[in-house]
Every structure is written in C-alpha cells, then in structure tokens.
C-alpha cells in the first residue's frame, strides 16, 4: 500500500483508510471533521494550510461535569443575562487554518456570537448565548472538530490573570521624556552666546525639569525600591549605584538650574532610565504558551463522578470529595485521591507518579493512590483521603515548592555591583577630599560628577541583553527557559542527574527481544491473532512487532485480568501472560518486564521488553561526562542497570526504585557541595526538579504537560544539552567581557569627573555611547554563539 496521507490531519493512512468525497482519511474521526467543515462552508480550512487538522479524540462522557452549574460558574470569565464568555486553552492550535476555523465558530452554531484566538497563548475566547447552548456543548463541539480544550483543576478558581503592563508604561514614559528633553537641551550643547537662546534658556530648562519628574518618580521608581530592599537586607546590589546615580543626577540638575549654574543633566538622566528599562524589557521574554509553574493541579481533572447512596451519579468538584465517598472512575481517568478499590479490575498506570513504566493490577480491597490512571474498565472506589492529603499531592507541601530559586541566587551583575559600589564611593570621597583641600568650591561638583558618570548603566545592561538574546536563541533551538536567571545558574552546573523513564528513554515503543524456543509460523499466527483481541498495552506493542500476515479465527478467547490471555484455534491453544500463569518459573536473570508464552501447555519462551533509549543518549553521556559528574535516579526497577552501565561513564551513581521524596532528598544531599542539574519529565520528578539548582523537564510535546521546572527541553534536542550548557558558560564570559568594556568607559568618564571638567554635553555623549556599544557588543557576540549551535546541528 502506498503511504497516502490523510486529507484532514496529514497522518499516514494505515489499516483503517476511509474514503469520502474522493479524499482519503486516516480514520472516521477525521472524515467527520471534514464533513462538518464542508457542510458549514468552512472547507477553506484546507486551502489556508494543507492537512492542518487534528484527529478528534474519543471523549464519551468526559465532560459531563460541565453540567454542574457551580463548576461552569467558576470556569467562565463573564456570565450575565444569558451571555457567557469563556477562555479556553486549546493545545492543538498550531497554524493559521486553526485561527481561521476557530474564529468562524459561529458558522457551526448560531449561539456563538464571537470567538477570538490568541495564537501565542493558544487560547480562545468565546462569547455565546445560553438560550439553547452551554459550555458543555461548546466543549463537545470543539472536541468534535479536533480542538479539544484542556480543562484541568488548575483552571478552577483561577481569576483572569491581570497582565502586568507597568513595564511597558514605564518604558513609554521614559522614552517620551527622553526624546523631548533631548530636543530641549540641544541648543545648549553648543553653548552659543546668542541673545535669542539666552532669553528662553530658563523656559527650556524648567520644561526639561518637568519632563524628568515622571521619569524619576514613576519610571525609575523600581530602582529605588530595589536598592532600598537590598540595603535593608544588607546587600549592595547593582540597583544601589543606579539609584544613587539617578538621584544625584536629578538633585544636581535641579540645583544647577535653580542657581543658573548650568543646564543640568536631564538629558542623561532620562536617557539612562530609558536604556535601563529597555534592558529590562528585552530580558522579559516569556513563552506565553508554556507554563513553568504547573503542579498536580494541571494534571488532575476538575470533577469526578460520585455515586450517591441511592445509586445516582453526580458530578462533584474534586475539592468537595469527602472521606468515605464512593467514586466512579472510568477508563483513562485519573484517580484524584487515595482510595480503596471496591468494584472492578483496576489496571493502573502510575508512570506519572512513580516513573514505573508498567501498569499494575489491583483487586478489590486493595489501596489505590492518587495520580494513577485507570487504563481499562470502570472502577468503583471508596475515598480514604481528601485531595490535599493524598500521597502524591502531599509532595507539594514540601517547602522546596515555596522557595524561589531566583532570590537565593546572586547574579553576576549583583556580585559585580557590590564591588563596583564600594569602588565608586571610595573614588568619590577621595576626589572630594582632594578638592576640598585645593578648591573647596569645586568639591560638591566633583562628588556629584563622579556619582553621575559612574552610574553603571552599561554594566546593568550587559547581562539583560546577553542573556535575553541567548534566551531567544535557545528558544529557537527548542530549549525554553523560564527566565534569564536560569542561564547563569546553568553555567555553574557541575553535576547532572537524569531520570530514566520518559527522560532518556522514549515514551513510544519498547524494543522487544524474544528468548526461548523459536515459535513456528502457525504458532506466531495464532499468537498474533490472540493478541489482537486484547487491549492490554503490552499485548498491543507485541502485536505491532510480530511478523505474521495469517489472520485466523479464534474458536475460544479468554482474558484473565492480571494474569494473561488464552486463545484457541482448532486443536492448538496458546497462552500469553505472567510466568506463573503460563507455567514457567520467572527467569531470574531478567528483572525487566517480560511476557511469557506457552503453546499447547508447553513453555516456549518469553518476550522481554527493553526500554528504548532516545537517539544520541550515549553521546550525550559521553560529552557531559567529560566535564561533570553524572547520575541516574529512576523510579523504575533495576532491569536496565547493565544496559545503562554500558553507556554511562564509570563511577556514575545509578539509583533505582526511587520514590519522589527519595529523589528530592538525594538532590538535596548532593547540593551540599555541588551545583546540580536535574533532568526529568514526570510529576514524580517534580520535587527533584524544584530542589535542584536547575530543573529541566524533557517533553515530547511541549504543549501537553510538564511539571514545574526552570526550563523545558524538547525531547528531540536532548542530545544538544551539553552544547546548551557550554553556550551558557560562554554567555557568562561575554558578560564579563562587556563589564571590562564598560569599565573602560567609566575610567574615561571618571577622568572628566575627578578633574572637575564634566560638562552636561560630555555626559550626554558618554552615557548613550557606552550603553549602545554594550548592547551592540553583546548582541553581536551572542549571535555568533547562536550560529555555532546551528553549525553543530548540521
């Protein structure tokens, strides 16, 4: 079969090919979406971008909780007089076709009055009337066209976040004042002795004063606050000399114009604040579609089905679950609380909680933990603990989650700032003392001039521009950082700890090896046919790899949950499952997951599932191992130990069966003498990610889910991690170089200041010149570094 692509979603059309309207679709879901679009005049969807659709998921009764008005009330942003407005996050928005179809939702239902997409955030804002429409209907409609909204516990109670635009305002104010003051002070630069200019000098000066007021007291207010906070906690941060500089500039200039001593330094003052804010603005790049703050709330459902005493089903909000309640857990639902299984066969995937890749089976009467995902069938459970008291969620009670890594870390700029401030103050006092001795009238002039010219504008700009630009370069290479501070911390890393499952192994297919007596062709065919009937994940992966085309009809098929499956065709029977079920001793040499096979009650052999490592993991370990200590922390069993030892450098710590708390404690222990980078993926790593100096979360689909972390790394570029660390170190060097450069400017400026020749025009030239050259220097260097990443790629 030639690999044809689905007209809707662009996936390969494999076994289930659907023909409709002379087009090929990979599944019925895609065909349905196509039908909906074409019948509603939205077929242009396929013209804007080709094969841009997303296959819809089965949703069944997943959104029944949206019938509960209390929950709806919490989710909608506006609700009055029959009109509701809701903001929904839709991770599958990815192209202009998506924008187009989602903004034409009213074509699908007339109750929708407007819908607006925010593409960078991947959200949609829908306004609709609730006469014959509801939030549930909207969500179902979106799901049916492949744009299933992501509604989690996180959304509940979340107020519409106020966007902080103060920096934009401040930048606007400073820029506005800077431009105007520049124009007003221009005539005085040339010191033309002209009657006309002299006459209006005062007017111009007071106008400049007026323009500088909002700059000092509004735009520059952040620096005063930060300097004050720093001084109060006995820290000399970089904002201290900046605040001192701004204040001196303002006071000296005001005194100058009052006593007609000169035109003041208002131009330098406003320019300084403008450039500083520009640096802050540049540093503030955020990836609005990513969240670095996620905890279990983004993973948990918003509501569950509760069984009342009389057998009625009711949807209740998760926080309202009480101990003793009976809950109904459907397949593919997350268990929100610790509970006891009452009815049904539980097959729970705990991979998010423990990192253990294999599903576990539980029988009624056994305890289930929050965070597990039921894979097949319906369960009835009795609640043991409330949400916040459950095993998994308790992890978030740990104090590491309240700690802010940023405040604990002293940035390079701040550590320079300390020495710088002391240096500047010393020079200022010595120079003042000297002038007091020689010419007392000049003393004050020199003192203020030193403080003005030494204001570390260029130093304060070096880090934001270097790191901000690096952050963008990393982002282009699919390495998304929470903020620029992470780069500085990353540069100091000397130990890297990896999680195993999902981080260095792929979440997709395992490699499967067969050990034992070779199966005959007939046996293989029977095995494959038997597996086909089973929905167990192991059966399905085994089915995919078995080479056999003969499809038989089974005379008998039995599935023994938790044990295995049995198939019979004519005279032959085959059993697949656990060792005891098949009638063999579990192989001692294998600690990995294995499926045993017997044919006609004779033990044949077993299929061993081995983790498949991501491409380039070996190389990654080798290049990282050259510079730093490595380690593996896995929640899984030690079946892969030998395999891992082969690819890891010697003396690497390998720890298995680690619970989330163990991981956290281990990292904490290491941190006593080391700077630790943790690379993980699931909720079970959340504690370790928060504790480590830098926590990187590896994700195959960056839109879906990643626990709270400092950076999100796309799984496809995991092997580039050493390069990213190297680049971080290089950018710190760039910052240090630009510090040197700006010190040169300061030395020149200080010469003018100390000798008492600082004219406003000198300051007005020197300050912007140093700032701009630093910006150019750092941007140029980081771009060269960025190009290196690209070269390494090819």
């Amino acid at each position, binding site marked *: 079969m030639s690999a044809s692509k689905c007209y809707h979603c662009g996936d390969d059309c494999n076994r289930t090919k659907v023909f409709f309207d002379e087009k090929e679709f990979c599944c019925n879901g895609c065909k349905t979406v196509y039908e909906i679009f074409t*019948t509603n005049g939205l077929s242009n969807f396929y013209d804007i971008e080709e094969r841009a659709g997303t296959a819809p998921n089965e949703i069944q009764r997943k959104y029944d909780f949206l019938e509960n008005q209390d929950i709806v009330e919490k989710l909608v942003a506006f609700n009055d007089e029959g009109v509701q407005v809701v903001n929904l996050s839709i991770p599958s928005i990815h192209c202009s076709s998506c924008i187009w179809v989602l903004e034409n939702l009213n074509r699908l239902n007339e109750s929708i009055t407007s819908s607006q997409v925010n593409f960078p955030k991947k959200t949609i804002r829908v306004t609709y009337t609730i006469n014959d429409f509801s939030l549930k209907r909207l969500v179902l409609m979106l799901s*049916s066209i492949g744009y299933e909204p992501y509604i989690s516990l996180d959304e509940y109670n979340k107020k519409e976040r106020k966007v902080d635009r103060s920096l934009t305002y401040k930048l606007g104010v400073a820029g506005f004042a800077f431009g105007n003051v520049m124009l007003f002070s221009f005539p005085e630069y040339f010191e033309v002795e002209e009657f006309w200019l002299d006459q*209006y000098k005062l007017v111009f000066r007071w106008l400049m004063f007026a323009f500088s007021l909002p700059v000092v007291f509004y735009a520059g207010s952040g620096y005063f606050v930060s300097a004050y906070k720093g001084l109060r906690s006995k820290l000399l941060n970089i904002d201290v000399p900046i605040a001192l500089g701004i204040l001196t500039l303002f006071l000296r200039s005001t005194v100058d114009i009052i006593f007609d001593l000169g035109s003041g330094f208002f131009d330098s003052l406003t320019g300084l604040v403008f450039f500083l804010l520009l640096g802050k603005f540049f540093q503030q790049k955020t990836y609005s579609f990513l969240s670095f703050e996620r905890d279990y709330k983004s993973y948990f459902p918003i509501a569950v089905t509760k069984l009342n005493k009389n057998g009625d089903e009711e949807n209740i909000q998760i926080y309202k679950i009480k101990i003793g309640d009976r809950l109904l857990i459907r397949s593919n639902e997350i268990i929100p609380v610790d509970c006891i299984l009452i009815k049904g066969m539980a097959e729970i995937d705990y991979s998010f909680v423990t990192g253990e890749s294999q599903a576990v089976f539980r029988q009624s009467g056994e305890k289930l933990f929050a965070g597990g995902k039921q894979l097949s069938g319906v369960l009835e459970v009795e609640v043991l603990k409330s949400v916040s008291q459950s095993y998994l969620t308790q992890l978030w009670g740990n104090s590491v989650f309240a700690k802010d890594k940023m405040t604990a870390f002293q940035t390079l700029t701040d550590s320079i700032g300390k020495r710088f401030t002391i240096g500047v103050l010393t020079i200022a006092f010595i120079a003042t003392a000297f002038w007091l001795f020689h010419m007392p009238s000049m003393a004050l002039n020199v003192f203020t001039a030193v403080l003005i010219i030494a204001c570390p504008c260029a130093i304060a700009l070096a880090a934001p521009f270097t790191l901000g630009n690096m952050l963008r370069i990393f982002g282009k290479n699919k390495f998304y950082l929470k903020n620029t501070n992470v780069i500085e911390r990353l540069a100091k890393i000397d130990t890297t700890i990896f999680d195993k499952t999902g981080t260095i192994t792929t979440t997709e297919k395992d490699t499967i090896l067969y050990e034992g007596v070779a199966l005959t062709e007939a046996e293989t065919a029977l095995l494959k046919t038997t597996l086909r009937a089973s929905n167990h994940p192991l059966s399905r992966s085994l089915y995919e790899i078995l080479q056999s085309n003969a499809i038989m009809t089974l005379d008998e098929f039995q599935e023994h949950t938790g044990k295995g499956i049995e198939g019979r065709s004519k005279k032959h029977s085959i059993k697949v499952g656990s060792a005891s079920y098949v009638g063999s001793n579990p192989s001692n040499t294998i600690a990995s997951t294995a499926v045993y096979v017997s044919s006609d009650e004779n033990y044949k052999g077993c299929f061993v599932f081995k983790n498949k490592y991501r491409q380039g993991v070996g190389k990654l370990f080798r290049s990282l191992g050259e510079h730093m200590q490595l380690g593996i922390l896995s929640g899984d069993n030690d079946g892969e130990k030998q395999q891992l030892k082969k690819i890891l450098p010697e003396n690497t710590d390998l720890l298995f069966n680690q619970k989330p708390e163990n991981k956290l404690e281990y990292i904490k222990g290491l941190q006593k003498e080391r700077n630790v980078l943790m690379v993980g993926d699931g909720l079970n790593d959340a504690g370790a990610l928060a504790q480590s100096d830098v926590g990187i979360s590896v994700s195959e689909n960056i839109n879906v889910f990643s626990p709270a972390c400092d950076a999100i790394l796309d799984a496809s570029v995991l092997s580039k991690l050493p390069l990213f660390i190297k680049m971080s170190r290089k950018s710190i060097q760039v910052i240090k170089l630009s510090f040197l450069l700006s010190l040169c400017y300061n030395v020149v400026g200080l010469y003018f200041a100390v000798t008492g020749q600082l004219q406003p025009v000198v300051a007005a030239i020197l300050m912007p010149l140093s700032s701009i050259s630093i910006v150019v220097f750092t941007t140029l260097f980081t771009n060269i570094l960025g190009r290196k990443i690209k070269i390494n790629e090819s």
Partner: protein
Amino acid sequence: MSVIYVLLAISISVAIVFFAAFVLSVKSGQYDDAYTPSVRMLFEDELLPDSKNSTDEKEIKLTKSTNQ
C-alpha cells in the same frame, strides 16, 4: 508674548496627545497578542456563502451528534 511660547505649547500638546494614544493602546491590550491579528487581517471572504441555506439542516444534525 513671544511666538515661541505658542509653538512650545502646541508642540508639547501634540506630543502629549501621542503619548496618551500610546497609553490607551497599551491599556486596551493591543500589545498583548502581537501575532494573531497579523494572521487575522489576511482572512476575508473565505466563507462559502451559498452553502448557508443547505447548512441549516446539517447544523441540526451536528447538534444532535454532539448532544449524545
């Protein structure tokens, strides 16, 4: 009264008008999403107009299927 005062007043008020426009545009959220509008402005008459009549019954069908 010198003309320069008049000129100053005019120039400053023009500048302030632009500044106010900037503040208003920030406040209205214009700069929050700088990408989507750039795509949106390229869409126009892509909707197929004639299918509207035949759509109504299909819409009912759709509503039914989502209502399950």
